[in-house]
């Protein structure tokens, strides 16, 4: 393994870390991970909006 291999792996690990962070944050906010629908119509979205306003 060369330094380039480690660099590429580090970039991918960082990307994966950001992806997992995004998913966890989205889940914490009550939004769906695999919903490609309109968030504005979603109960979770509305509940989050209510919580964040309070």
């Amino acid at each position, binding site marked *: 393994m060369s330094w380039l291999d480690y660099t590429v792996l580090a970039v*991918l690990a960082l990307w*994966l870390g950001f992806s*997992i962070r995004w998913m966890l944050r989205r889940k914490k906010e009550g939004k769906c*991970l695999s*919903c490609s629908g309109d968030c*504005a*119509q979603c*109960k979770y979205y509305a509940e989050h909006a*209510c919580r964040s*306003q309070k």
Partner: protein
Amino acid sequence: MILALIGNQNCGKTTLFNQLSGSKQHVGNFPGVTVEQKIGEVRGQKNCQVVDLPGIYSLRPYSEEELVTRDFLLNQQPDGIINIIDATNIERNLYLTLQLMAMEIPMVLALNMMDEVHANGGTIDTELLSQQLGIPVLPISAIKNDGVSELTRMAVETAQKHRTPTVYDFCPAGPVHRCIHSVRHIIEDHAQSSRLPTRFAATKFIEGDPIVKDLLDLHRNDLDAIEHTIVQMEHDCGLDRNAAIADMRYNFIENVCRVCVVKCRESREHIRSVRLDKILTGKYTAIPVFLLIMLSIFYLTFNVIGSFLSDLLEMGIDGLAMGVDRVLTAYGLNPVVHSLIIDGVFAGVGSVLSFLPIIVTLFFFLSILEDTGYMARIAFVMDRPLRRIGLSGRSIVPLLVGFGCTVPAILSTRTLSSRRDRRLTILLTPFMSCSAKIPIYAFFTAAFFPKYKVLVMMSLYVLGIVIGILCALILNGTAFRGKPSPFVMELPNYRFPSLKSVLQLMWEKAKDFLQRAFTVIFAATIIIWFLQTFDARINLVTDSAQSLLAAFGSLIAPILAPLGFGDWRISTALLSGFIAKESVVSTLEILMGGAGLSGLFTLRSAISFLVFTLLYTPCVAAISAVRREMDSGLRAAGVAIAQTGVAWIAAFAVYLLLGAFL
């Protein structure tokens, strides 16, 4: 300070909410778009929030929307109400206004669409109307942002000074008047201890509102006395209790409008809409026209615009992958890392990404249909067929939303008033093919039916609907016996679609898809690549059939073998689809390792696979939505298993049937 935004369906509430708060909530041109309350900060006002509540026609607790709004007013006790009404239809809209006034909460009345009233020769004397109703009345045009700042100022001032409506007695001397005042007298103490406005509680009690009855918790003697008073009123009026109260309200509205309103003539938009509706909602023309429109949309999306853009993007992604491949080879990157990037990330994320134009194009057309007002006509046209299969006409809203995504579709079943209708609709919604499955269909049709893409796509959507109908008929005759509740809706005038709202919806779809591709699909891709590259001892495998993934996939593969696709790679792809449907494509792409679909499927098994993916369990988000709405994890699991069972049977039947021809 909290201001509640309340009005009838389709009167422009969400448009006004967006103007007040500067947010970009989706504005639907058909009823039932807002199911839950949404909160936004009022622009230019400190510590002032506005809550967008679902559209309702009365405060009777019939539907979930009415319950949400009523609960909010009674339990959250907002500082003020902005009651928005459609000024072109003032008499009907004021019916809700009178009920809100009885809540004794400071309120202002926003006469929306006043520009249309004036354009069609009508006028409303707002000052006189304000005197007659005892609340501030302001003319606005929410869509043009006219009068909105004045409305905000007035609503805040009214709430701050706690100016409750000064008129609350709508009944002239007579039997209804006597009845309301007698009931009010009897329940006064109970209403105050339950923190209910007395006039509101009295009228609701007379109307037989079960929630108010429970809250008041009256003694037997009081109940008998009230019943006697109501029966006396019914006898004197010659009307039943509900009709008598409604009649009292409408008489008051009629008298107010007689002095304040000069009715507008029929608008050009309405005349045009009536003409168009003769064809678009005609008894014999509606369904053929609808099918023709949908066929055109599918043709343009999958054969012309969407597929062209998709091919371009795919070429770009392939070019980039080749470039990266060359660079990585030139720098002598480790073969495993090289494979992770090219066979994992590029094959997985890239394959899903190339379908972005198709999804955006499809939603471009669908948002035009919605914005013009045609979607509402579809709901109207489908009412009768839906009733025949035991569904309420209202079920069409969740079913239509289901073509976008099953999660909001299941949530929007809350607009259905009966538990039976709600549950039946929840069970049928996953049969409507969601947009996340489009990449799977596009992937397979491009490989197996390049000349008949549109026909196959359309057939899949139709098949989903047909299976849904069959299930509805079976359930209606067995577990869900009963009559669907009636459906009342208002058809908006046809209008030219707003470029802003169409572009907004397209952008939301694209953003959402990209976010998911670079996060969820990326993570799934890495996991799938890892599992197919290593075995249980984390040793690199030369043949992926010895990998960890093959071990998992082989457990399920025998169940799918009778359907023509018993390969472990396919069962793994289907499993990954439970997280997100697009993952089916990315997983197959990784596992095929550059070989085409024809290495895994025959034409017969490809069709069987498409039928299975169309019908099998919705994704985890949709199942959790089912669990929430049905309030049972067991039922949600039942839905997932039943759905997969139906998919298995349908795919098996198709596979057997095709055996005779292919």
